[in-house]
């Protein structure tokens, strides 16, 4: 077996492992915001490793796969941010054990209604 296929397969397997951890995080975390941390972080690396691994196995796809990786890197944080902000403004609470919420203070300062 060619070296690139071996390394590529290892990367894809690692990527799958991180995607699994992301899924596990979504189950285990206590509230929406922490779930999103798991869902966005572990899956970024999971995606990147899977894409690069595939690129090593099929070198002809590499350029295209790197472009897809770039799109993931640019769009993933924007959708995460939009979801978190939307959820907060719709009144999804932080988990009980949260230590601080300076966002609510600021919103109240600006006289904005926050459902809770």
């Amino acid at each position, binding site marked *: 077996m060619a070296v690139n296929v071996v390394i590529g397969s290892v990367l894809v397997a690692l990527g799958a492992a991180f995607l699994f*951890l992301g899924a*596990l995080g979504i189950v285990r975390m206590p509230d929406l*915001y*922490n779930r999103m941390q798991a869902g966005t*972080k*572990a899956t970024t690396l999971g995606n990147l490793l899977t894409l690069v691994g595939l690129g090593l196995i099929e070198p002809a796809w590499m350029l295209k796969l790197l472009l897809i990786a770039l799109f993931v890197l640019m769009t993933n944080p*924007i959708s995460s941010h939009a979801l*978190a902000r939307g959820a907060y403004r719709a009144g999804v609470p932080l988990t009980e054990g949260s*230590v601080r919420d*300076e966002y609510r203070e600021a919103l109240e300062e600006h006289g904005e209604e926050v459902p809770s």
Partner: protein
Amino acid sequence: MERAVRYLVSIAALWALWLALVGTLDPQEVVAGGVIAVLVTLVAGGAPFTGRSLRILAPKRLAWALAYIPYMVWAIVKANLDVARRVVDPRLPINPGIVRVKTRLKHPVARTALANSITLTPGTLSVDICGDELYIHWVDVQAKDIEEATREIVSGFERYLEVIFEDAA
């Protein structure tokens, strides 16, 4: 004149992106890509490439932008390992909250890049931005006040983004 340059750069960049994605120089794809690049540029009014953003092609900025890539990749790897470690730990060691940080960056694109970089890295998620203040959900709040939080979360990225997007030279 600058308007024309802006449109041409936008068309060229979109065309190059199209060709890279289809991965062939088949005349059919070349023509289709050209038509779409022109249409998108017209619809967007050359928006992705303002006169300011063309200056990002200055060598110093380009060099810092390239240096930012490995910096980000390393930060993303750390972010993933950190979150993975918390997720598999049976005690689920988190200490979450939303903190406020301040940024020195002025340019809207620079602020967007900062917010996105923060979201991609260890345990931090940008929830909102209001002027020069960002609200960050932090899985493991370490800082006691806004200065400390800013130093922990923002400063590392700011050093790069300042040069890439705002350097006057």
